[in-house]
């Protein structure tokens, strides 16, 4: 078991860790733009399209008589090959769409599979002729960070710096184009050229990432950090920062898990010589973070949203109970069944609400199991009824809605109106004494 910090200091572990983090960082940054432009499927197609480039790059390296230990030359060839293939794939997609009028989804799918198939054919050639190089190129399929060296760090630092600087250089233009193309055109921004620039960015990010995440899963690292970051913020800059943080985290922990699990399994099953690819682990970490954000993000998180809705509904039910007790005569004690008849919620839930109302000191329960309002409760119920009837008056007098149709809206608004709005309504309506149904409106609070 290695400690968390040793992943940055240990000579063997350092390169993969930093490499993975850099790759995920640049992918996450570009991913934000891809995500906002709804082009994540293009990322998917292009990431697969880099595979023949990886194999071709290796073949070119061999024909230039680069040895298997000349890391730098080999990586350079592979990166250039992958980049060219990604751009070629993009060109083909555009050609299919624009020239031959094939729908986007079919074009993406066809290019993805065809390029990948071409890559597989080339790879089988490589496997047969140069098995050692074939093993190297297979690392790019699912990503294998463990064998990275300091050369890789150098190259990926350079690529990340390139991506960050392009993004910074065109930040304004990218922002404008992403959110309002027509406006950008009228501003005189060269939309086509910036689009092309963005595609270069995508290709660069893919090429930088495939060593760690692999061609098959690379598109995930574009989408997932951006999707997770989107849950927390509405600002583009914050999204860039958050997405890159999520990218860095998943890069680190993905690599960490892959190394630790590999050592664990090699101790448990020494014969199998198992090595877990980094790509799936990174993706799994990232998607765990993403699912967590989707469920628990403060504003948009699904579970938190549901929880807030539940709290509001709970408050509504309690207020409705108070109201219905008030309607039965503020001073009367009423049995449970009478209260339950007026509510839609289940028996047990109403019982639970009443129990809490008793704890809060708004309701009393007498010896014969009848419930009555305390003076506090009576006042609170009167307030709710007041809000209800004030709103009815407002709707009828100011919005000209028929008196028979105002009840439903007031039924909702009574739980929403704040004391400030109540004051304004009172002022606006000259403190009315009767609602449209000629019911008296309880007086406002003495406090």
């Amino acid at each position, binding site marked *: 078991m290695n400690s968390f910090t040793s992943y940055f200091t240990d000579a063997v572990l350092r390169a993969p860790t930093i490499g993975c983090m850099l790759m995920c960082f640049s992918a996450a940054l570009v991913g934000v733009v891809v995500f906002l432009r709804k082009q994540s499927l293009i990322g998917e197609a292009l990431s697969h399209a880099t595979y023949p480039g990886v194999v071709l790059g290796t073949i070119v390296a061999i024909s230039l008589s680069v040895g298997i230990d000349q890391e730098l030359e080999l990586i350079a060839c592979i990166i250039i090959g992958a980049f060219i293939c990604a751009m070629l794939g993009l060109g083909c997609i555009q050609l299919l769409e624009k020239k031959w009028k094939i729908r986007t989804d*079919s074009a993406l799918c066809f290019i993805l599979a065809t390029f990948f198939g071409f890559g597989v054919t080339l790879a089988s050639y490589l496997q047969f002729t140069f098995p050692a190089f074939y093993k190297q190129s297979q690392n790019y*399929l*699912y990503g294998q960070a463990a064998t990275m060296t300091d050369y890789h760090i150098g190259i990926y630092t350079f690529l990340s710096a390139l991506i960050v600087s392009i993004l910074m250089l065109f930040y304004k233009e990218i922002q404008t184009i992403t959110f309002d193309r027509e406006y950008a055109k009228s501003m005189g921004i060269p939309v086509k050229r910036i689009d092309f620039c963005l595609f270069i960015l995508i290709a660069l990010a893919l090429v930088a990432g495939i060593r760690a995440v692999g061609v098959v899963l690379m598109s*995930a690292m574009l989408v*997932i950090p951006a999707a997770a970051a989107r849950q927390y913020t509405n600002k583009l800059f914050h999204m860039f920062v958050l997405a890159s943080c999520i990218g860095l985290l998943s890069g680190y922990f993905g690599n960490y898990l892959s190394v630790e699990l590999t050592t664990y399994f090699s101790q448990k099953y020494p014969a*199998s010589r*198992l090595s877990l690819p980094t790509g799936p682990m990174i*993706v799994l970490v990232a998607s765990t973070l993403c699912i967590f954000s989707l469920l628990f993000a403060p504003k948009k998180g699904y579970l938190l949203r549901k929880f807030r809705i539940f709290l509001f509904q709970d408050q509504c039910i309690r207020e409705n109970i108070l109201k219905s007790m008030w309607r039965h005569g503020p001073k009367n004690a009423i049995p449970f069944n009478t209260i339950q008849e007026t509510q839609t919620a289940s028996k047990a839930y109403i019982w639970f609400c009443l129990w809490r109302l008793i704890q809060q000191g708004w309701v009393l329960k007498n010896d014969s199991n009848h419930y009555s309002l305390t003076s506090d409760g009576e006042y609170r119920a009167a307030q709710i009824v007041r809000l209800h009837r004030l709103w009815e008056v407002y709707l009828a007098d100011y919005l000209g809605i028929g008196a028979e149709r105002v009840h439903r809206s007031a039924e909702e608004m009574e739980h929403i109106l704040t004391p400030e709005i109540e004051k304004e309504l009172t002022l606006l309506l000259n403190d009315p004494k009767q609602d449209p149904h000629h019911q008296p409106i309880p007086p406002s609070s003495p406090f």
Partner: protein
Amino acid sequence: MDNEFFNPYSNNTFFEFFYTLFFRMVAFFSGKLPVAEFASDEIQLIVLSFIASSTALIGCFLTLRKMTMLANSLSHTILLGIVAAYFFTIHLYGSQAEGVSTPIEIMLLAALVMGFITTFLTEFLTKTLNMQEDASTGIVFTTLFALGIVLVTLLTRNAHIGTEIVMGNVDILRLEDSYAAGIILLIDLFFIWLFFKEFKITTFDPALSQALGISPSIFNYLLMSLVSITIIGAFRAVGVLMVLSFITGPPLAARFLTEKLRTLLILSVIIGVLACLIGVALSRHFLSAHHLALSTGGIVVCIVALFFIFSVLYQTLRLWLVYTKPVLPPKL
């Protein structure tokens, strides 16, 4: 590969392959060649043709309905189904020697279940969690695929199996695989034959079909189920990614040649099967003439792409001859 008996195709070049194939077929139809004596090339040819036919049939509807990205995400997530089916089989039938194939009914069940899980999760992300559609597709299938890769590596304790699943390997095909592929082709054919009218009307005019009481969403689900069983039938031979080329390639190529649905289906099947035939022959040619064992699946994908280019060229040439200004076919 074929140690038990002599392979008649060894050392055959491209044209000699067809020559041998012709005589083997004559021998087969005159009853002189029992099924058990099929050479590995023939088995590959049979399996690939079955796969190509079923994928081409399904692919026509998918491309016309703009649903090919569904095939893409299913092809990734089906891996999890494959892992599940594999382990279900081991627990059900006791531990088996490696290489024994999973029974087809379990495979089909796994494919269906995974298909529904994928669609359900994607819709959950889009509708309940308010995620944009492309991103939710991307998140679901990559996550499930990553999970599948990790599980398959850990559970089989074999790092190469992951590679084999995305790349496919025609050399491991045996006669049983052709039965499985045949059954899947029959299922596809049966459903398309049974619901041809419904598929046609839900594809071209969903509003009309709704008015007629044919629910497009039911047929979407039916098509989705067919896609997942077709993909699971193909993964051993061509892998889960290249099958996408089998699905989209032939219909796109055929689309330039015809405007009728029935002709489109027939033409795509012909293109798919022809590509397989040429692909297997080329693969044998490279082995005999250049001593290169290239991936047959990859070669077939390249041939499909060539067919596409030819049909584009044919279309361009024809339009150029007929009109001065080229008119393009309706958007596909």
